[in-house]
């Protein structure tokens, strides 16, 4: 090495230094690496109450809502994320996650349905276009979820192919799932029907709007998100 000209010597020393750093990084990196944030997704068909539930969680633990809600389908047309939501159990345990509210998944979107609800044609077409993009992004995000809450409207028939496809895809990815039967404050709600449709999962009846059984919901999250 002594007989090498100075620039070459510096170059070689520089490369040796970089190699040493990489070895050090590989050996000890995992001790210093930032802990990955758990992503908890809210999935389901449109108008199941995903954003209402997301708002309830965010209001309870962050003091601010997540997004707007509407009785009109496809109100959420973009994936919304609230980072660092920390919930606490009665025993003092803490659970931190990034909450991901996704647009409702559907197999059909017709702008005329929005026109029937009172929108003008231009607005309806724009909403339909955004809604299709929303469904695509929801499906793309399936791969990134660490745990998922499937939010279903307890007053509606659970045997829809959209529900079966969402749950089947999560099952194939081995993603932990909690099925929430929402809107149980309504007379027509039928949790048993949802339980018999998805017997392999825990089904929890809640009302995100009236906060019915919401404490039980938070307790169950500790079992699902690990």
């Amino acid at each position, binding site marked *: 090495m002594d007989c090498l000209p100075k620039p070459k010597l510096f170059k070689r020393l520089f490369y040796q230094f970089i190699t040493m750093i990489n070895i050090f990084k590989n050996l000890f990196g995992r001790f210093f690496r930032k802990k990955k944030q758990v992503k908890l997704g809210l999935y389901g068909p449109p108008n199941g109450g995903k954003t209402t539930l997301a708002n309830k969680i965010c209001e309870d633990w962050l003091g601010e809502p997540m997004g707007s809600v509407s009785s009109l389908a496809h109100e959420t047309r973009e994936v919304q994320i609230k980072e660092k939501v920390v919930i606490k159990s009665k025993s003092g345990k803490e659970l931190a996650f990034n909450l991901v509210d996704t647009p409702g998944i559907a197999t059909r979107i017709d*702008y005329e349905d929005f026109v029937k609800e009172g929108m003008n044609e231009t607005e309806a077409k724009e909403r339909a276009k955004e809604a299709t993009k929303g469904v695509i992004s929801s*499906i793309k995000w399936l791969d990134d979820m660490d745990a998922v809450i499937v939010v279903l409207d307890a007053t509606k028939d659970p045997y829809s192919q959209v529900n079966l496809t969402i749950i089947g895809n999560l099952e194939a990815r081995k993603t932990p799932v909690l099925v929430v039967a929402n809107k149980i404050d309504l007379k027509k709600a039928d949790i048993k029907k949802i339980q*018999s449709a998805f017997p392999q999962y825990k089904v929890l009846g809640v009302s995100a709007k009236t906060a019915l059984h919401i404490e039980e919901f938070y307790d169950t999250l500790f079992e699902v998100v690990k």
Partner: protein
Amino acid sequence: MLTLQFIPYTEIEQLSSSKRISKLLHLVKGDKIILLEGRLRREEEAELIKRTMESIGPKFSGIELSVVYPNNKDQAFFRKVKQVFINLVLGDRQGMTIIGPANVVKEIKQHPDKIQLFTKETSSVKKKKKK
């Protein structure tokens, strides 16, 4: 007039996932209701929904989809293993997949043991097509 087209599993068996979905979507866009022998893989079902959304426009408002699948929960262990083996060798030919264009099929109601397919009135379909 309604057109039902039966597709045997052998017709899609050799195709890649992407080509399977393209073939099915092409037929559905031609206003046909497809009765596919067997089922798509779970990821293919999600991909079908994704590709459907990408195709939505003034003349195509999406699909109605339903998979009828036999309930194997109460089967004996040996029969279950046999079925898994058959699926591995021959592909998932069990059950049936129904896919219809949303402008023809109003709703497919799925029950554990039966399926109900409701179509839109032909006149309203024609009206929409003229637009």
